[in-house]
């Protein structure tokens, strides 16, 4: 009963970091939505919170009341990995590894993180690392061992600038960058909080503007949507909440992450404004 572990084929999971540099662009929302989306598509997935000291992934995933041990306890040998992993109550193959709220980022040692990730690789198909904002230790550790990166960007100057900086770090300060002959990290941009109306009015940069500046492939476009706040209020990843343009956009991005070709589409969850409602819709 306990020894069937030895026979299990190793999966060698893929490590995907969700990063951005800038805070508030939707990293944790995206990490939750993408990991849930991968699990919904049948992939065994774990999502790890790297934001030591400011734990929040647990709230977005709705498991904040079930945290006992955390990532740092595992790194420091105070708990076993399987004791710290929280199994999602809704999806069979989704697990959450919360972070500590009492320690600081120095608790993330490169050796410790590597050991935990290697253990997870044998067990999970996808390991999604939710990076903290900034480019300090926590963010560096979240990206260091990644195979792929999702750079979450808003069509706004400071976000695009920070994403550019992060792309630079991905191609210089990571295991794949340092190991001679290794394939570089596959980095893709996920545009979030995309507001079709404001773009139409010329108030916001377009997808093409952003891609032209960053020069990396596009993983997806997630529209600004009330569904995102509602999902976080309820502790449900966007992709598992009621259908919305945002959840559809995340599911498309997830499909592309797994190698499927899905056409880009721009949808909107915006409710028509007062005038449009009173005088009939125009678009």
């Amino acid at each position, binding site marked *: 009963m306990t020894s069937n572990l030895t026979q299990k084929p190793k999966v060698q999971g893929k490590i995907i970091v969700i990063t951005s540099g800038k805070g508030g662009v939707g990293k944790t929302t995206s990490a939750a939505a993408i990991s849930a989306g991968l699990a919904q598509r049948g992939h065994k997935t774990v999502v790890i919170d790297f934001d030591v000291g400011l734990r929040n992934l647990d*709230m977005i995933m709705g498991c904040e009341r079930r945290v006992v041990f955390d990532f740092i306890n595992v790194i420091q040998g105070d708990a076993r990995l399987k004791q710290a992993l929280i199994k999602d109550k809704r999806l069979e193959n989704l697990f959450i590894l919360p972070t500590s709220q009492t320690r600081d980022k120095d608790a993330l040692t490169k050796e410790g993180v590597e050991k935990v990730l290697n253990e997870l690789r044998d067990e999970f198909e996808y390991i999604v690392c939710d990076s903290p904002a900034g480019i300090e230790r926590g963010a560096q550790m979240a990206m260091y061992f990644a195979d792929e990166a999702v750079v979450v960007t808003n069509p706004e100057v400071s976000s695009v600038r920070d994403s550019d900086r992060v792309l630079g770090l991905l191609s210089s300060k990571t295991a794949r960058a340092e190991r001679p002959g290794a394939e570089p990290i596959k980095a893709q941009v996920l545009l979030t909080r995309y507001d079709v109306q404001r773009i139409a009015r010329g108030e916001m940069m377009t997808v093409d503007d952003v891609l032209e500046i960053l020069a990396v492939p596009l993983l997806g476009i997630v529209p600004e949507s009330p569904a995102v706040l509602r999902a976080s209020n309820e*502790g449900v990843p966007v992709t598992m909440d009621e259908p919305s343009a945002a959840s559809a956009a995340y599911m498309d991005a997830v499909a592309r992450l797994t190698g499927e070709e899905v056409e880009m589409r721009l949808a909107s969850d915006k409710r028509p404004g007062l005038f449009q409602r009173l005088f009939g819709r125009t678009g």
Partner: protein
Amino acid sequence: MFGFIFRPRKTKSAQTAKDRLQILLAHERGSGPAPDFLPELQREILEVIRRHMKIDKDAVEIKMDRGDEWSSLEINIEFPNKEKDDSDKEADKDEGEDKAKA
């Protein structure tokens, strides 16, 4: 005084968010952010039990569920049966903890 006018406008999910935060923050403010004593508790439990029976160091499982009135701490200890089999076993303890004040 005007509260009743605005209250119905609050959507259900906003109320859910508020409730979740109140429960969580009541715990975090009261007893520090996280139950940091758990690794040590686990170690001590293991030590005591090992004095009396042979168990694996991975055999202790601690689960917690925080509620607004009560929290529960569930400790499961799995141990092998010596050749005789009863159904394989586990000791359970449930322990209520403090009430939270909003």
